[in-house]
């Protein structure tokens, strides 16, 4: 079975570490030991491993519908605090009763279906106050433009028929670029969130971060906290100092970290963090280009400066 090769997905690794930061901010709202983490962790349970490393006090549940993947999860399970469940997310959410227990959900989809928005809405209506929900969606505009047997108009129409209920305007054409498409998906999630938690319920979905990136496939990911509307300021305060926070539905922040060797990273390390114009500064420190032009090199090094704390080292290891 084909699963993404994790060592080839540096941007996803950054996103995963950003989640660790977001969870750390939750400490401003409640004891982390009160939370349970639910994930669609895939065969390697990479996020489970990471979260256990940082937050051993959080209980964890992995949901997996395929028997074969579940077997691999059993092999990779990083700690005894994780419960591996064979379950379909939709059925799980339908039966889920939080009993006022706080949760952190990562709906880590690899595709893009209207059912994903339905799951998201169903979950928002159920989770306890101060719970966190992170949803990850495929953001490949090419899916709607590269179908050889259909023209552009038909593809756009297919998109509108599929997602009409959550589109900001009924005649929306899917944008072609990653950031544009990811921004549209974020707007669709905002509409879904307002549908699930209208103001009359007293609850709301407060966004805390959103990113888009591509490790070969375009991805958009949004994280937020479910809170009472009158406690919105408290939630915002808890995340206000986080440099990656997006508290006002601004367009998703692009993660596009450069591929650097360990030697290059060590060379740059002593100059980080550096203030404005980090790209220029780091190019001077490095002394050579990593892209085909100085401008592109500076842009990528700016990305490195922004995310270097989240950038994992991928090393060859002897098992």
């Amino acid at each position: 079975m084909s699963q993404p090769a994790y060592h080839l997905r540096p941007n996803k690794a950054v996103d995963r570490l950003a989640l660790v930061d977001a969870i750390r901010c939750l400490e401003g709202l409640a004891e982390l030991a009160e939370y349970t983490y639910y994930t669609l962790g895939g065969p390697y349970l990479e996020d489970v491993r990471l979260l256990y490393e940082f937050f051993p006090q959080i209980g964890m549940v992995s949901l997996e519908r395929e028997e074969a993947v579940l077997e691999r999860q059993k092999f990779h399970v990083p700690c005894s605090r994780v419960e591996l469940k064979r379950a379909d997310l939709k059925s799980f959410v339908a039966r889920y009763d939080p009993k006022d227990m706080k949760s952190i959900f990562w709906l880590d989809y690899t595709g893009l279906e209207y059912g994903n928005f339905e799951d998201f809405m169903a979950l928002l209506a159920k989770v306890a106050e101060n719970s966190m929900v992170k949803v990850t969606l495929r953001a490949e505009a090419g899916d709607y433009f590269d179908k050889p047997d259909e023209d552009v108009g038909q593809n756009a129409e297919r998109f509108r028929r599929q997602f009409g209920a959550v589109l900001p305007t009924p005649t929306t054409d899917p944008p072609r670029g990653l950031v544009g498409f990811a921004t549209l998906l974020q707007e669709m999630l905002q509409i879904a969130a307002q549908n699930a938690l209208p103001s009359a319920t007293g609850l709301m979905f407060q966004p805390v971060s959103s990113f888009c990136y591509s490790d070969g496939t375009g991805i958009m990911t949004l994280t937020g906290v479910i809170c009472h509307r009158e406690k919105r300021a408290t939630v915002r305060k808890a995340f206000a100092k986080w440099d990656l926070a997006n508290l006002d539905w601004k367009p998703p922040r692009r993660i596009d970290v450069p591929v650097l060797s360990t030697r290059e990273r060590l060379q740059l390390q002593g100059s980080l963090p550096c203030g404005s114009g980090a790209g220029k500064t780091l190019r001077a420190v490095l002394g050579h280009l990593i892209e085909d032009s100085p401008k592109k090199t500076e842009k990528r090094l700016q990305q490195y400066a922004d995310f270097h704390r989240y950038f994992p080292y991928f090393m060859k290891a002897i098992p």
Partner: protein
Amino acid sequence: MSKTATTQYGPVNASPVKSFFVSMLTRDIKLEEAILDLLDNCVDGVLRSKRQHSDGKPYRGFFAEIDFRKDSFSISDNCGGIPWNLHDYAFRMGRSEDRPRDAPGTVGVYGIGMKRAVFKMGAHCLISTHNGQNQYEVEIKPEWMTNETDWMIPVRVAKKSMKTPGTTIYVASLHPGIAARFSEDSKVFKSDLERMVATHYAFIIDKGFEVKINGGSVKPRPTKLIFSDQKGGMKPFVFQSRTRDGVDVFLTVGFTRPIPTEEELANEQEETRYSSIDAGWTVVCNDRAVLYCDRSELTGWGEAGVPRYHTQFIAITGIVEFKCEDASKLPTTTTKRGIDASSTLYLQVKNKMRESMRMFVDYTNKWKGRASEAKRHIEGARALPFEELKQAAGKLPLKPTTKTVPEGKQYRPDLPLPKKTESTKRRISFTKGADEVRCVAEHLFKDRNADPSAVGERCFDIFLREAQK
């Protein structure tokens, strides 16, 4: 009854109370529909202004701008304003019998739309209008709304001069629920309102009218039907009539897309694939869609031999248009966003709707499981919006129908039937676990997401070759 009863019976007071209009009647209508009522008034203004273009875009140059925010709502237009001779109708609750005759084609009938929309949203309202030589404004204050005895509303010369003839309605002191929808729920509210305008006003926007919501222009989302110019190609059913009452009826039903494959049907049962379905009936009265893609008994689904709507019929769409200079003859409800299901005219036309729908239901049933074969019936065909469809229908050989009421002319397409192959072919259908299907798909096609029917068919072909050795 006891003869000793001493109760003195006198006349009872049956006069209306203001709260009935201000806070009861408003419950019968959704906020979005109330706003569409205000748009209807704008369009009626265009019809009164007699400045329409005659190039197929009669509303070109006319606009309505809707603006909503946390503490206010406004709608401004350049559609001619409210004539002073209609002020009694415009501001009075309900329509008086002696009101002046309105312009042909306007849809205001009951005299409640604008007031109900204002009361629905807030307690303070300023209506400014410029029509001809008249520029006046009417202010409805919160005290007026709660005063049961004072029914008079003062009118004064407009404080601000309006350059072009038109009307602005400004509502403040919003009710808390409305203010929340305009602020905290604004994203979803704007999306819902825009969808309703794009669908219910598709015909009018297509004819040149412009609607802006918070600065953004709304594009129409018209219903389209497949129409093939080729001989034997897919065409819709068409019925045209003019009733004795002077109502023009145009009915058409056909396909919007290819009929669904077995795979699509199975997937839809498992998970919602399409959140927005264009199937069903759209009913249009004087250019306004009063029903959009309805799939209930109201439009004939699930009654008199027509099956209940099911995803299998996702490709079937119909449009009925009623047109009349006297809007009271149209089969609409007071909200103008619904059909008066007991209207004789509508019941007669509904018979035609069911009759025509059965043809396409039958076609869908006959070709079920052969969607790829059926696709060739629409190859090269165009998807035409309503106005173009009406023009194309003019070239069809319409035949008179005298046995049905209302009488009219109709075109019944000759929908292709599959060749009788039952004696030589058999259908195989079975269900297997998703994991197992993915496993076999990977084995056969190196693609875990391969079409399950293709997986089943390949398995059969492999074993057929084995068996034939």
